[in-house]
């Protein structure tokens, strides 16, 4: 039995969804994009072009729900299946778009550069419990107009895993799409084997900006999957009650769904988000708040109820260092997320309200992910009944170390974490250098990067990716991309 967690009854989900639908019909949603408004009007929505407003009827929402796929897969740069976003299958991806990186001393946070990004992408190849990469941080040694596309370029060049990403502007979509076309070859191939997911954020309350609504349209047209990242901030920009915030989240997400599905029925989407219970003492948006995590799991239940694959920013921490708070918030989130069956879990590696990325934390979080996957496999009877022969063997031999039963089931039953997790007795731990968690994780970062084997994209494809990126850089007055290897 797969252990699962639920916060909401079907009855409460129904009430929340009904309430959200009636908000969309009565208050409507602000959309600052004329072509999106016209498109909605063409599909029967009442719109006010001057007021940038659309009212979405039940019929529009029903149509959107009907055409949205219940699941989809992501494929790596070589075209192999890598991530299944379906049912209760959980997959992890690193937290996204940090402003800073935690330096190798474990204390200072500083701006990342291209070299940091390359180290990250190489490290991701060895993170076996994290199925996709994300464009985790913004290299600052390139022109700011290309910093979103450049991180996708580096990811595609150095790691084969599919990429969770997003654009900062409408214009950057073009190059980010072209990079993907270079990898897949044709638009048809890209649609058949999605390589990326783009995050698109409504603005709470009930608003879509020109940029993000256009992103939805562009992604739908190219069959590039999107995840809607609605961010109600409970107690500030959303009701303080969890149910109230869930109503807002549902309305915002359904409005995004309507834009995607009316643009192109069947466009792949994730029912996602990044809500936070606003901390009214510190003026911050804590990802490690227990109510934040409960909301993530709960809207995922709503997504499942609506028959959509889901995503959440959970399994990350607001701590500034790789300390006990980082461990407790990350593992609490990751555990809840997997128990709830969230399909795309965005979090590992991230600290400080989604603003600081740590390679060492990524290594530790990879172990947390592995542990949660073991947990999700549950407790299953294997060769356990009848048990008498095994106990006879134990009594006779006084151990089961080399029993057939042990050898047969060891790998499936026991999860052995990597060396960043301390399992030595005190004397051995001292003998091995008495290292802190950060130091152990840091050694792992160095080891995995040293053992990195280059991504296997063909020379033609990498040449084309580089040509595209260099052209884009030149367009913004940058003659040369940073030297990386």
């Amino acid at each position: 039995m797969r252990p699962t967690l639920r916060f909401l009854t079907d009855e409460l989900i129904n009430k929340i969804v009904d309430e959200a639908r009636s908000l969309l019909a009565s208050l409507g949603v602000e959309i600052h994009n004329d072509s999106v408004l016209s498109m909605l009007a063409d599909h029967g929505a009442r719109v006010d072009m001057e007021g940038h407003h659309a009212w979405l009827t039940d019929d529009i929402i029903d149509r959107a729900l009907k055409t949205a796929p219940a699941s989809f897969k992501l494929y790596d740069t070589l075209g192999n299946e890598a991530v299944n976003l379906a049912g209760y299958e959980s997959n992890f991806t690193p937290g996204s778009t940090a402003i800073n990186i935690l330096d190798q001393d474990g204390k200072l946070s500083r701006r990342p550069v291209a070299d940091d990004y390359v180290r990250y992408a190489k490290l991701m190849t060895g993170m076996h419990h994290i199925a996709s990469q994300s464009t985790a941080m913004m290299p600052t040694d390139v022109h700011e107009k290309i910093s979103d596309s450049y991180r996708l370029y580096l990811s595609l060049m150095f790691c084969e895993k599919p990429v969770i990403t997003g654009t900062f502007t409408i214009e950057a979509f073009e190059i980010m799409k072209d990079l993907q076309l270079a990898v897949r070859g044709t638009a048809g191939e890209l649609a058949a084997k999605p390589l990326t997911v783009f995050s698109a954020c409504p603005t709470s309350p009930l608003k879509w900006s020109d940029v993000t609504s256009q992103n939805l349209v562009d992604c739908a047209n190219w069959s590039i999957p999107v995840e809607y990242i609605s961010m109600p901030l409970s107690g500030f920009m959303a009701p303080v009650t969890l149910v109230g915030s869930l109503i807002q989240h549902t309305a915002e997400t359904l409005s995004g769904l309507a834009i995607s599905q009316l643009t192109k029925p069947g466009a792949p989407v994730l029912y996602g988000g990044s809500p936070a219970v606003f901390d009214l003492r510190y003026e911050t948006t804590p990802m490690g708040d227990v109510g934040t995590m409960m909301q993530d799991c709960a809207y995922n239940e709503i997504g499942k109820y609506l028959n959509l694959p889901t995503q959440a920013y959970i399994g990350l921490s607001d701590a500034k260092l790789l300390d006990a708070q980082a461990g407790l918030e990350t593992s609490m989130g990751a555990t809840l997320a997997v128990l709830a069956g969230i399909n795309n879990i965005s979090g590992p590696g991230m600290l400080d309200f989604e603003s600081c990325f740590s390679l060492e934390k990524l290594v530790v979080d990879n172990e947390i992910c592995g542990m949660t996957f073991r947990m999700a496999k549950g407790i299953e009877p294997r060769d356990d009944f009848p048990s008498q022969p095994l106990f006879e063997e134990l009594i006779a031999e006084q151990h089961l170390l080399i029993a057939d039963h042990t050898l047969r089931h060891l790998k499936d039953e026991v999860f052995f974490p990597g060396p960043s997790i301390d399992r030595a007795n005190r004397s051995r731990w001292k003998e091995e250098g008495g290292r802190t968690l950060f130091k152990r994780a840091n050694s792992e970062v160095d080891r995995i990067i040293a053992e990195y084997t280059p991504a296997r994209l063909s020379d033609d494809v990498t040449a084309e990716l580089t040509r595209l990126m260099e052209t884009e850089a030149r367009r913004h007055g940058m003659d040369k991309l940073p030297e990386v290897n």
Partner: protein
Amino acid sequence: MDILENISQSLQNGEPDTVAELTGKALDDGVPVKELLHKGLLSGMEVVGERFKAHEIFLPDVLLAAKAMYAGMEVLKPLMVGEEAATSGTVVIGTVQGDLHDIGKNLVGIMLRGAGFNVVDLGKDVPPERFIEEAQRTGARVIGMSALLTTTMPVMGLVVNLARERGLLGKVKIIVGGAPLSDEYAQQIGADAYCFDGMNAVDCVKGFLGIN
């Protein structure tokens, strides 16, 4: 309890009606406007600010206290002249061009208003020119800019340069804030201060305007 202390206490409790009533009563009793303002209302707000910084009270408590302060100010306003009326100055705020993050900026605006400043909020995605024009038009003493994206931070430098070109630097103080900002960056672009949160912005603006 002395009536001024009573006013300060009711303000701290977030009771607008009581503050308005007591302020009226104190006026009738002949308490001077200046004393009422400083020793009743602003001193109450000062305590609220300190308690918020010490995490003893929460943001809603600060906003309720600010509301109570305004209720008292409304009673005093018709009688305030010259220096008293100009206790606070105008602050022009906005989120820079290309950036749609306005939650932090809005919160800063709420806190500045709560502290008695006249806030002109230009919204988000604000072109550099607009900050300067509005500061000139309103006679603002402070321009406050917010940016949450590493890609939009450079716009702040453009605003500082424009302010320099127009001879505003020095006369108008420039503060900046937002997750990617830092003291160093503020210095690098020539801004007068980096503010890490709303209360810090209030303290900073007060410092610039010589309000204790």
